[in-house]
């Protein structure tokens, strides 16, 4: 049987992405079903991430699957020296799909090589995180009606923020124009700028973040600027307030503009922005549920047609 694991979606075709978006959209219409009745979804969180785990487990539960798993590596034998391979092999005897998060880079790919049970990568080290990317793509698609030719503004920590890197790579086929707005110390790494040049993706780098510099944005993707990322704390003190979004900065922005943020936020979006029609970060998190329902079904060989003709919908 072909391996249906989803380790990365960076190389997915536009057709494959569109299918996943359409599946997510069906799940948004009817999130509660018994499509996965009798299936067991394992969530193995070798590294804790409560938000991601809850979202995956909710997705599995709403589709009628049962969920097993662990979240703290200390309670499993992996802290006693059991290899990742042995843990995956053991869980493969029980589960139909394994959702895993691990602190080591490449762990999900390796896991997918040692078992026939499909693996969904819920994050491994600083590597790609397909479920976050899918929910970002779905949020953009849903609010803009397309993924094509958009002005995407990324703000804050563009150096370490892996969600912006994943988003950048997965948007490359849709002719975006990126604006990278960050302090010097947290600017977009050379390798991603090179990636843009190599793929004919336009980008502009900016230091200033104000109502004029964001006026053309379709998507404003905010990230956290964290103190511990700075080697120079003077620099941190100088820039920490320069990348905070306030409601009064939204006066010139486009009507269709939406603000995304991977959450949790610290202080980079003022609470007065929450009431703006441009604020979309809570819906974005909600979209994670539909995106994850789509990913789980994809790994189990359930097609868009199966979902459209689903007789198990609970209304």
């Amino acid at each position, binding site marked *: 049987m072909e391996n249906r694991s989803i380790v990365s979606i960076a190389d997915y075709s536009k057709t494959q992405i569109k299918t996943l978006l359409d599946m997510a959209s069906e799940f948004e219409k009817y999130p509660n079903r018994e499509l996965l009745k009798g299936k067991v979804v394992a969530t193995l969180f070798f590294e804790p991430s409560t938000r991601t785990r809850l979202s995956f487990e909710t997705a599995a539960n709403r589709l009628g699957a049962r969920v097993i798993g662990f979240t703290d590596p200390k309670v499993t034998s992996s802290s006693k020296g059991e*290899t*990742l*391979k042995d843990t995956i092999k053991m869980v493969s005897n029980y589960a139909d799909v394994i959702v895993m998060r*691990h*602190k*080591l*880079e*490449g*762990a999900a*790919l*390796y896991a997918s090589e040692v078992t026939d049970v499909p693996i969904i990568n819920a994050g*491994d*080290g600083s*590597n790609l995180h397909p479920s976050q990317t899918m929910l970002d793509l779905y949020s953009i698609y849903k609010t803009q009606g397309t993924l094509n030719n958009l002005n995407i503004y990324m703000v804050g920590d563009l150096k370490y923020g892996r969600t912006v890197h994943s988003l950048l790579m997965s948007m490359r086929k849709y002719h975006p124009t990126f604006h990278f707005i960050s302090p010097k110390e947290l600017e977009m790494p050379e390798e991603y700028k*090179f990636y843009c040049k*190599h793929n004919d993706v336009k980008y502009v780098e900016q230091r200033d973040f104000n109502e004029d510099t964001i006026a053309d944005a379709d998507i404003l993707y905010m990230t956290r600027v964290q103190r511990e990322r700075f080697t120079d704390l003077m620099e941190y003190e100088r820039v920490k307030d320069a990348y905070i979004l306030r409601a009064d900065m939204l006066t010139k922005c486009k009507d269709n503009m939406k603000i995304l943020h991977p959450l949790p936020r610290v202080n980079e979006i003022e609470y007065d922005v929450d009431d703006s029609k441009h604020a979309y970060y809570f819906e974005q998190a909600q979209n994670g549920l539909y995106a994850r329902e789509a990913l789980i079904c994809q790994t189990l060989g359930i097609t868009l047609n199966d979902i459209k003709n689903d007789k198990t919908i609970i209304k």
Partner: protein
Amino acid sequence: MSKEQLMVAALENGSVIDHIPTDKLFTIVKLLELDKFSEPVFIGNNLDSQIMSRKGLIKVANKFLNEKEISKLAVVCPNIRLTVIKNFEVVEKREIGLPETLSDIVKCPNPVCITNNEPMKTVFYVERHNYIHQMFPYEHELNEQDNAKLKCRYCGKEVDLKEIKLK
């Protein structure tokens, strides 16, 4: 006939590794564990060469390199020449180039890569299409070793061939 050719011709069965950069000779001796080898081994360095200014040469009796050893040689110094001799005759002569994939030959330099934390094989892809040529198109002089990069299958990290450590 030069002395060197005489030495090669005198080998009944075995391997000749030629065109070795002089500073890599003893690395290769160690890599092939020739210091522990009990059959005759001839090692020459700073020999005159037509294609390089000076070169090293190793002749070893009754040893035929396996693919793994050949891959390791290619990583340490690409473009060396391997000659296989059986019954005093040359049965194979080839330049050793880098293969497309290196399976379990080199270590990943990334400490948080799964390959450094799990008993498993490493896999590296050799990237020749290059980065360097696109960024500096006029630097034609770079040879393969200078611009080849290896990319870890698992963590995606790219490493210069020159900085690589064997597994």
